[in-house]
């Protein structure tokens, strides 16, 4: 329960901090921290317009997307306290709940009949397919290292004893950050501020939505960010008490937002042909990490 509330809180100010960081890096003062939230509130109160060729899929997809992300959020524990939906093997459920939401967004994008959206949908599917084994590599390494199979148990039993586990932890953190960037369609994979449809990946999938649906999708993006931040924060908590845990959660969310904003300000988007290599190299790194953990725990085939 605590986890869910904290993630919701982080999601409220996440988008604002990203925008603020980008503005400060560009030398401007920028809008307030809650401006994106106000935009979402405005969108929610508006009416929606749907295309004539769209079927019911377009109408229900954003809701399914939001619901799937909520389900995934439910798996994440908070320190010692279990999430609403923690069970053995829930990290697999986590990955596939997110995949379900993404699947519905993709076919809804195809449903509108616009070629731009189809192109963006295929790219999105391609890149997340290439980066998905990275997630399993990281979580699998953690599972192998601690010998447990649910998020709660993994993070509770994760001990950072010797420097080797610190090194492991930092590499996993880096991989998770880059994975966040890929999954949420940020730089260097996708530029959210581009207005050229040929260069969009995620933005072009949601071109045809308006009103409540668009607001929901934008809020879901924030929620996904907060969810990944919570996942990262869990690497550091574990058996701490409540107050330091809360501070670490909020701090990690803040730091992640600043990092995302920094990366967006200072890097350019990769050439489209280089993105599959980038995503797959993440998978290869995660594979190496897995081999290292196999080696450390002495479990040879």
């Amino acid at each position: 329960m605590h986890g869910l509330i904290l993630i919701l809180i982080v999601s409220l100010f996440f988008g604002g901090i990203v925008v603020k960081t980008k503005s400060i890096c560009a030398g401007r003062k920028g809008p307030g921290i809650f401006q994106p939230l106000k935009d979402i509130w405005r969108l929610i109160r508006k009416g929606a317009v749907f295309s004539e060729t769209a079927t019911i899929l377009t109408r229900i997809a954003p809701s399914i997307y939001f619901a799937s992300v909520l389900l995934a959020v439910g798996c994440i524990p908070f320190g010692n306290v279990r999430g609403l939906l923690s069970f053995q093997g829930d990290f697999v459920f986590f990955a596939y709940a997110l995949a379900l939401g993404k699947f519905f967004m993709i076919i809804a994008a195809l449903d509108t009949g616009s070629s731009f959206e189809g192109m963006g949908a295929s790219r999105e599917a391609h890149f997340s397919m290439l980066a998905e084994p990275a997630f399993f590599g990281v979580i699998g390494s953690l599972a192998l290292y601690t010998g447990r199979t649910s998020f709660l148990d993994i993070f509770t039993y994760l001990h950072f004893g010797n420097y080797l586990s610190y090194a492991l932890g930092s590499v996993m953190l880096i991989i998770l950050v880059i994975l966040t960037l890929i999954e949420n369609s940020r730089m260097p994979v996708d530029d959210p501020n581009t207005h050229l449809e040929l260069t969009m990946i995620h933005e072009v999938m949601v071109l045809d939505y308006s009103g409540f649906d668009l607001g929901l999708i934008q809020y879901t993006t924030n929620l996904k960010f907060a969810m990944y931040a919570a996942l990262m924060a869990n690497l550091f908590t574990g058996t701490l008490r409540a107050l330091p845990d809360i501070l670490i959660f909020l701090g990690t969310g803040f730091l992640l937002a600043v990092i995302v904003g920094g990366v967006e300000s200072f890097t350019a988007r990769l050439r489209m042909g280089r993105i599959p290599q980038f995503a797959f190299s993440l998978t290869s790194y995660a594979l190496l990490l897995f081999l290292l953990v196999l080696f450390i725990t002495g479990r040879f085939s």
Partner: protein
Amino acid sequence: MKAIILILFAISLLNISISNRLRGFARLLTLQGFLLFVLAFIQLNEVTILNLVFVLLETLVFKTIVLPLFLDYVIKKNRITRETEPYVPYFVSLLIVTVIILASFIIVQQIEGLSGNTLFFIVALSTIFTGLYIIISRKKLITHLMGYVVVENGVFILSLAIGNEMPMMVNTGILIDLFIGVLVMGIFVNKIGDVFQEANNEYLSQIRD
């Protein structure tokens, strides 16, 4: 600590397979040289001081500093273009190198009697095969030279595994191969660049039956 350095070395192998610029490739070779320097420092703790200083100087000075500078000199002198020009797309290269690392992991697991040097063998074997793969999948001759350096690094890691007992092996191998091999090959790339307009593999196909 050794495990971390070896894994970082394997990560640099992956980066080599997707590097599309010659300068980037040369910088990765610098990184590999530096990692080998640290590894040699940690691993060789039972040899005499003279041998140790010799090996360290050689990795640090030659592999980390002189070799990339020399490669830069050859690239500039022959005005070689930036691209690496592989025969297969970079994505396929990345896939193949990942498969090579996996395969060497599985192969080394089958050997008994390795006395704790397993990770050395895995990384050394994958480096050698990755180096050979880079040699055969690139068009430019300078990349052949760099692939040869990668193979050399792999053999160096292998010799570090037994370096404590036989320091002479470590010294001989690296000295002769690097000084004679790489320097002379670099000179040859210069000469080839002088004669042909581009130091490419395609121009070197005149001798045939």
